[in-house]
């Protein structure tokens, strides 16, 4: 009797210790949320709401994102990706995930967009820079919105003006850039901003 109580007590103690340990990043279903937690009532009620930074119009954003998703799906391995078009402050305009694209691709795409906006370069250029520039790598790692340079994020330019980004995530073997480029090419001749 005493022994079983002791066993039970130590099990509970072990359970408590496990509960205090940092929660393992669950191989998770549901996955870690893509979207940020709710804004406070103060934020929601604040007026005026800040204006959006410059960006391309949403019809073009949707067209580019859908084209990028379709380009990846049409490749021999039919990749299921997320395409994200943002404004010039990295705020999303259109987020489109192909059927059954992994949830985490949305967050990866967002990181690429943040990088493009912050450093005014494609994320592939940032990957190249990171290869020889350890200070740059450390700076990216210290930024929770970027973490690391990964290819697949492109600036949307009008002349010398960055008006947005298009990012793709979800190909495991380096085709994110190709799909983003396909999306960008589709709208390149008709860019207009809000």
């Amino acid at each position, binding site marked *: 009797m005493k022994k079983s109580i002791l066993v039970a007590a130590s099990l509970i103690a072990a359970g408590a210790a496990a509960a205090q340990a940092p929660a393992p990043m669950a191989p998770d*279903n549901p996955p870690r949320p893509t979207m*940020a*937690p709710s*804004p406070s009532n103060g*934020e929601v009620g604040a007026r005026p709401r800040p204006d959006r*930074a410059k960006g391309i119009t949403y019809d073009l954003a949707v067209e580019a994102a859908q084209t990028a998703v379709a380009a990846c799906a049409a490749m021999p391995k039919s990749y299921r990706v997320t395409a994200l078009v943002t404004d010039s*402050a990295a705020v999303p305009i259109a987020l489109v995930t192909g059927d059954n694209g992994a949830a*985490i691709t949305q967050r990866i795409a967002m990181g690429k967009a943040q990088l493009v906006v912050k450093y005014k370069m494609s994320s592939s250029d940032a990957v190249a820079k990171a290869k020889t520039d350890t200070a740059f790598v450390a700076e990216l790692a210290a930024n929770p*919105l970027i*973490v690391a340079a990964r290819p697949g994020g492109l600036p949307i330019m009008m002349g010398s003006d960055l008006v947005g980004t298009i990012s793709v995530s979800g190909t495991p073997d380096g085709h994110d850039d190709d799909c983003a480029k396909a999306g960008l090419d589709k709208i390149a001749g008709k860019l207009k901003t809000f």
Partner: protein
Amino acid sequence: MRNILLAATAVLCFAAPAFAQMSPANPAPTIVGPPTADELKLPRPARARGIPTALAVEAATAANATCIGNTYKTTALITDSAGVPIVMISNDGAAAITQRIAMTKAQAVLKYKMTSGEVAAKAAADPAFAAEVKANPMIDTARQGAVPIMAGGELIGVFAVSGAPGGDKDEVCTKAGLAKIADRIK
């Protein structure tokens, strides 16, 4: 009452840093930061049930078109049955915060299996329920404008709109978007 205060304090502490950083040039991020290298190595779970992407784009676009027709710059969000976005589209110039508000509406629908307007009505009549909602950082406050996407009696997704001056006006657009695809949802 004490619980409500505690929960409210927790939520305020949580939200305050983002609020402090907010500015037109640096809005609080809608989408959380990218995964670390370790997180990237984890298995990628299959997606929960949801509607096809093509239908989601069509419905979200229709909802936004309805709202902009009423001069409201909105965000339309469609998630799968686990609350993972399939499509999110903002009307030109829609405030960044509408994306995060749309997500909280979607979370309310997902958790309580009713429209977010019904969650709000229940919270208004039931303080214990209101405290529970408040304590959930993904919801915080229930606001009308999101509805479940149903197929065969099962919730297979959520459709949320934010940006109109009032949740009832958001819900008009949600319902218009849903009506556009209703007969093709499987």
